[in-house]
């Protein structure tokens, strides 16, 4: 259970009740909405998780933890799951029922809509699934899915009441806080929900304010205008860490940083070129330069520290001679490639220029091309050969299913291998966890050897809080249950 | 330099050529200049000038153009040319403001402010003693009074205008009104009557007399000896920056001690020997400019050739007497001064050899100005006007009657008009922008305000030479040489020609402007008051040059815009404008001796009266 973890993790004495906490996030501007299914940005998610609940959520190692779902039980074939809800009520007092869950999922999966969680819920056959009681549901799946709880914890799969409309006026959820006011792009005020199933939050009120500029968030925090600032720069963290003015919280392993090579086209359709590139990268230099040291080096595998992570593989180091040799073998001496980047995420342009200089030493000419940050992700999906890439925390299974299978929707490395797909299916049909882990290990070994992701680091997610803010979890990567979670926070 | 007058320090003034304080015993001078020397670039433009300005008296500074009048006058204001080395003493009575009527009124009027605002600013200081609520009305009243005193009728309309919407003479009078408003103990008036017609001039003279009668000291810098004679109590004669003679006006005029004074007063003083005047520069102008004595043609200007009186009566001619106040006095034109004397003796027919086509014809001209709130106002109507080659036409009329507007229409500077202006029978484009180079060269215009028409950042000679380069395709070197020759011919030595316009005196600039137009070798030369800023001697010189030109070049014809009937008398024909109407035109002597229109008559009369007023 995530909730109880964070309390002892904080170790800040006994919680105090009351007070209002103001938390600043980078926001979505005037188009923001409280519809949890539309949640897209961190600010949306933070607000959504204050008002709403999911059936499950991710723990610090990205394994699914039960939330509104009290327990889940698969059948033998792993394609039917019996989920029992815990006793919880919405803010209007009505109980959370199986019908609400099915309504929420159907709303998300509505073919006429394009909610973000739709793809995650794809394994569920919603027509066949049904409520088997007031608080129990039988989910019928399209195929065996050993990691079905991950689906329940999916980004944006919030449970809303069956009769919910007008989310911006009076949203009703079952989360720890209830709605008070909302001004899109500016602020949202929520009050403690005393009947919260996990126990009422310590805070009386929480206000989410929007401040897009990082320095504004820092200044507001330093000036006592807010108590919690989300997403700070590493340099800011360095400037204020241990200075006594504010607390810096680093959420390790929150964002995977990578270069993404398209394995279906030259020059990266030759695995020796990919391997050469793996060896070109000086990961330490990249982390120090692009992330200002706020992160750890990667080993070309997603999910360091997560469940199923293959940490037995040797750490890759820069080896320019070997890289040159590999390139020579591949007939790619004097290689020229274009590296797409954009200001879409912190560290991208920096990483690109650092890598350009590193590649130069191996005789590879990298030309850095800046792209529009608004359409970057869809631009790089099919175009170019090499690009900067980043991913937030998600289970390794989800990473594979979304990005590395033949029919994955966002397969940016164009990694399409029938045998790899088969391995994934095998894992999903494997009931035993250790056996499953072994399959995952095999898949990761393959990726380590010749995959398209050159994963050079994992960035910390940096949060600043006022000194009197206690109970902020320091281990949960962004996007997991205990990140941006305010019901366990109190003001000392 | 001390600028305060200390009682008791008066006494010995300069080297015995100072103001004669004994004339007005008991009253100390309100301002005084002692041994002033202004040196610019090693040249003393004023040298050892001393001057006492006594209350209630008019002190006139006279002298040729460039003799240092303006420089001396400005010294009373504490202003000197940039980079000048100044020695000597200038004292002005403590706290006293000095009224100043500058020589170039246009430059002194803020282009972005209405006339009323310009005057009210000064009036405001004069009504400080009143309660706040009455100030506005009182100031307004003073402004209107000052405008009336400065002979600006229709003050309401004019005060709503911007300076550029006034005629040259009107601008001059606005500046005068400013000086009158100020209530200063001393007024320095630099050529206050240039650009004024005789009628207005007469009234301005009266105004100054009244001002002096109030105990205000007036320093008059003028080349206009009529005005000087009529007004001055004291006269100081300057020559090349030095005082050559000074004394009571009466004395200086009747028995000039210095040869130069005598020459200046050449026109004024009844010369004992009439031949002497013939030897003077201007005297060579025989009769109308460029008249060929051998030509017996009666009047080629009259296209219809109709017999009878040559007065060209125009359909719109006004019949009422424009100025009922004008006492009907002695009719006829004065016969004085060398030019006029020769006019009398010239061939009565004044005919020329040429008959041919008129070089310039004006047909049905109606010019408008955009005027404040009331949209456009017609300021000029000239149904027909012809100019023949080798002939000259003088346009006379009161200030603001539309003379400049007519000239600007001809020159293509005023587009807002109906009717046609034909050069050799082909209509000239309305705007000079559409005129070809030949057309531009053919019709040249010398601006009324020479100061404003020069680029202050380039030496005069360059600007003059450009005409030849652009309009005649001369190469720059030749053009510069030509420019220098022309300028020298007009009395501007090379040293002056290389200066920037801001460093020339008013009269010098006027001559430079004339030179600039002449370099185009124009066929029609329109001169707008080009002699207004010149002393008699220089004026004669200039008119002489023009005469020679017209005579020397068959195809040059001249339009002389002037308020000076003496000058007008030199032309073959005269056109009279009154309030925008062309009321009369005909051969010069006819118009001047037997004016047909009452307005012309009154003009002629006033000129005479002003001269007569000298005696008082």
């Amino acid at each position, binding site marked *: 259970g995530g909730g109880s973890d964070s309390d002892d993790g904080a170790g800040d004495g006994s919680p105090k009740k009351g007070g209002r906490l103001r938390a600043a996030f980078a926001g979505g501007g005037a188009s923001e909405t409280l519809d949890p299914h539309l949640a897209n940005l961190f600010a949306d998610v933070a607000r959504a998780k204050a008002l709403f609940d999911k059936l499950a959520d991710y723990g610090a190692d990205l394994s699914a933890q039960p939330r509104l779902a009290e327990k889940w039980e698969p059948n033998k074939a792993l394609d039917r799951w019996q989920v029992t809800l815990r006793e919880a009520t919405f803010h209007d007092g009505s109980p959370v029922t199986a019908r609400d869950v099915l309504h929420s999922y159907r709303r998300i999966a509505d073919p006429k809509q394009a909610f973000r969680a739709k793809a995650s819920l794809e394994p569920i056959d919603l027509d066949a699934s049904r409520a088997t009681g007031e608080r129990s549901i039988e989910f019928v799946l399209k195929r065996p899915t050993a990691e079905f709880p991950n689906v329940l914890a999916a980004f944006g799969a919030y449970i809303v009441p069956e009769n919910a409309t007008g989310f911006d006026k009076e949203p009703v959820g079952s989360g720890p806080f209830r709605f008070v006011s909302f001004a899109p792009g500016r602020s949202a005020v929520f009050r403690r929900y005393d009947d919260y199933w996990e126990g009422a939050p310590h805070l009386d009120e929480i206000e989410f304010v929007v401040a897009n500029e990082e320095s504004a968030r820092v200044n507001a925090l330093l000036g006592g205008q807010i108590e919690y600032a989300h997403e700070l720069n590493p340099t800011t963290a360095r400037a204020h860490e241990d200075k006594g003015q504010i607390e810096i919280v680093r959420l390790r392993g929150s964002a995977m940083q990578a270069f993404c090579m398209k394995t279906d086209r030259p020059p990266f359709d030759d695995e020796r070129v990919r391997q050469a590139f793996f060896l070109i990268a000086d990961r330490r230099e990249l982390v120090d330069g692009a992330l200002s040291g706020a992160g750890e080096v990667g080993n070309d595998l997603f999910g360091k520290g997560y469940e199923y992570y293959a940490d037995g593989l040797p750490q890759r180091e820069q080896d320019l001679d070997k890289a040159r040799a590999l390139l020579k073998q591949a007939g790619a001496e004097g290689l020229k490639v274009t590296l797409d980047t954009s200001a879409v995420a912190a560290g991208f342009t920096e990483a690109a220029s650092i890598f350009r200089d590193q590649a130069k030493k191996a005789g590879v000419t990298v030309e850095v091309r*800046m792209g529009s940050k608004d359409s970057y992700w869809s631009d790089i999906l099919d175009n170019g050969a090499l690009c900067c890439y980043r991913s937030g925390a998600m289970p390794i299974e989800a990473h594979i299913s979304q990005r590395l299978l033949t029919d994955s929707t966002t397969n940016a490395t164009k990694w399409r291998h029938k045998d790899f797909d088969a391995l994934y299916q095998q894992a999903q049909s494997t009931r035993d966890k250790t056996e499953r882990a072994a399959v995952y290990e095999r898949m990761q070994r393959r990726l380590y050897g010749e995959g398209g992701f050159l994963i050079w680091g994992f960035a910390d997610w940096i949060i600043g809080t006022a000194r009197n803010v206690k109970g902020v979890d320091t281990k949960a990567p962004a996007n997991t249950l205990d990140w941006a979670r305010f019901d366990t926070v109190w003001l000392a | 330099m001390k600028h305060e007058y200390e009682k008791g320090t008066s006494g010995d003034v300069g080297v015995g050529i100072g103001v004669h304080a004994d004339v007005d015993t008991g009253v100390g001078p309100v301002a005084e200049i002692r041994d002033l020397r202004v040196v610019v670039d090693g040249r003393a433009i004023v040298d050892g000038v001393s001057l006492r300005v006594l209350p209630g008296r008019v002190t006139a500074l006279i002298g040729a153009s460039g003799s240092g009048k303006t420089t001396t006058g400005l010294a009373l204001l*504490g202003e000197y040319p940039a980079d000048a080395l100044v020695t000597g003493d200038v004292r002005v009575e403590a706290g006293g403001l000095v009224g100043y009527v500058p020589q170039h009124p246009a430059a002194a009027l803020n282009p972005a402010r209405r006339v009323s605002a310009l005057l009210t600013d000064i009036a405001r200081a004069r009504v400080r003693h009143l309660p706040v609520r009455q100030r506005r009305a009182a100031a307004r009243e003073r402004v209107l009074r000052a405008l009336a005193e400065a002979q600006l009728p229709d003050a309401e309309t004019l005060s709503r205008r911007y300076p550029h919407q006034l005629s040259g003479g009107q601008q001059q009078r606005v500046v005068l009104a400013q000086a009158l408003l100020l209530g200063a103990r001393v007024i320095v008036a630099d050529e206050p009557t240039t650009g004024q017609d005789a009628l207005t001039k007469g009234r301005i003279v009266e105004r100054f007399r009244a001002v002096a009668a109030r105990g205000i000291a007036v320093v008059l810098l003028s080349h206009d000896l009529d005005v000087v004679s009529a007004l001055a109590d004291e006269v100081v004669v300057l020559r090349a920056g030095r005082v050559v003679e000074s004394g009571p006006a009466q004395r200086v005029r009747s028995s000039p001690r210095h040869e130069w004074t005598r020459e200046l007063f050449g026109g004024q003083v009844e010369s004992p020997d009439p031949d002497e005047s013939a030897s003077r520069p201007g005297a060579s102008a025989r009769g109308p400019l460029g008249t060929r004595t051998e030509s017996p043609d009666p009047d080629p200007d009259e296209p219809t050739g109709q017999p009878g009186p040559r007065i060209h009566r125009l359909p719109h001619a006004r019949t009422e007497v424009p100025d009922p106040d004008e006492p009907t006095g002695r009719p006829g034109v004065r016969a004085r001064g060398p030019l006029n004397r020769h006019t009398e003796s010239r061939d009565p027919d004044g005919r020329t050899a040429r008959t041919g086509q008129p070089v310039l014809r004006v047909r049905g001209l109606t010019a408008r100005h955009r005027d404040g709130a009331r949209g456009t106002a017609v300021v000029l109507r000239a149904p027909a006007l012809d100019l023949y080659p080798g002939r000259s036409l003088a346009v006379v009329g009161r200030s603001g009657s539309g003379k400049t507007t007519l000239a600007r229409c001809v020159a293509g500077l005023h587009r807002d008009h109906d009717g046609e202006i034909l050069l050799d029978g082909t209509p000239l484009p309305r705007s000079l922008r559409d005129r070809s180079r030949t057309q531009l060269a053919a019709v*040249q*215009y010398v601006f009324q305000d020479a100061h404003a028409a020069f680029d202050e950042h380039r030496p005069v000679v360059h600007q003059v030479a450009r005409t030849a380069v652009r309009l005649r395709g001369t190469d720059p070197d030749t053009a510069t040489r030509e420019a220098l020759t022309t300028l020298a011919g007009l009395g501007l030595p090379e040293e002056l020609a290389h200066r920037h316009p801001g460093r020339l005196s008013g009269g010098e600039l006027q001559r430079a402007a004339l030179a600039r137009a002449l370099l185009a070798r124009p066929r029609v030369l329109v001169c707008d008051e080009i002699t207004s800023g010149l002393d008699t001697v220089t004026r004669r010189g200039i008119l002489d040059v023009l005469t020679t030109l017209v005579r020397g070049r068959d195809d040059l014809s001249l339009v002389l815009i002037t308020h000076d009937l003496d000058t007008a008398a030199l032309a073959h024909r005269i056109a009279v404008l009154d309030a925008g109407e062309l009321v009369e035109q005909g051969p010069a002597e006819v118009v001047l001796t037997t004016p047909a229109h009452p307005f012309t008559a009154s003009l002629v009369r006033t000129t005479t009266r002003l001269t007569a007023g000298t005696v008082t």
Partner: protein
Amino acid sequence: MRSPRTGRFALGLTIVAVPLVLALLGPVFAGEPGARAASFTLGEGHWLGTDFVGRDVWRQVLHGGRPVVLTALAATALAYLVALPVGLLSALTRLRWLEELLMRPLDVLLAVPSLLLILLAATVFSPGAVGLALLVALANVPDAARLVRAAAAEAAARPAVEALRMQGETWWRMAVGYVGRSMLRTLAADAGTRLTGVLYLVATAAFLGVGVAPDAADWAVMVDRNRTGLFVQPWAVVVPAMLIVALTTGTNLLFDAALDKGGRRGPRRTEKEARP
């Protein structure tokens, strides 16, 4: 009179010399790039510390002058090259339609957020350094043209211009020689600020991917990109910013001194004679 002016010349020269000499000779002395260090750190042989990607700031400073001076000067010059004729033409023409034709489309450009313009250029044209100069110049043209027009309108209506027309003077002499000369001081004042504005526009554009690389050694780009480290490693921002300040301030001091030399004419009241 003479000595304060020469003094100002000297001061202007000294101020402007530092960035200019750095810009001209900097690359010669820069030497080979060393190994990268962690970003925004001080010490370890980096006497101005390291920048946002861990490069030596001093080396970047040495390299960063030339592009600044070149692009910014070129862009400013280019902007005036278009704005001057357009502004002057519309001030000097009597053709209403021509004036409207010249000025109104520029007004349209003014109303379009420049951000949008640059974004578009960044993505559609992906221009290089020359393109960037063109683009930045373009962004400055409407503004400059309006200013030129406003300053020229009054001078263009003076009798002196009529006299020039009377002389059949060429358009250029009239427009540049007289009208342009009359507003020289205004132009110089505007050029001073415009040059600075252009510098930072170049930097912004660089960040958006137009023209120079986002990590280029370019003072303006350095100022922009190193801002996150302002509190940890201020030199990476302060030094290039100071150089830019020196460049613009020095240039303007020189301008001012030169203009005063052209001097004022006509009667000038000196202090002593000032009336009470």
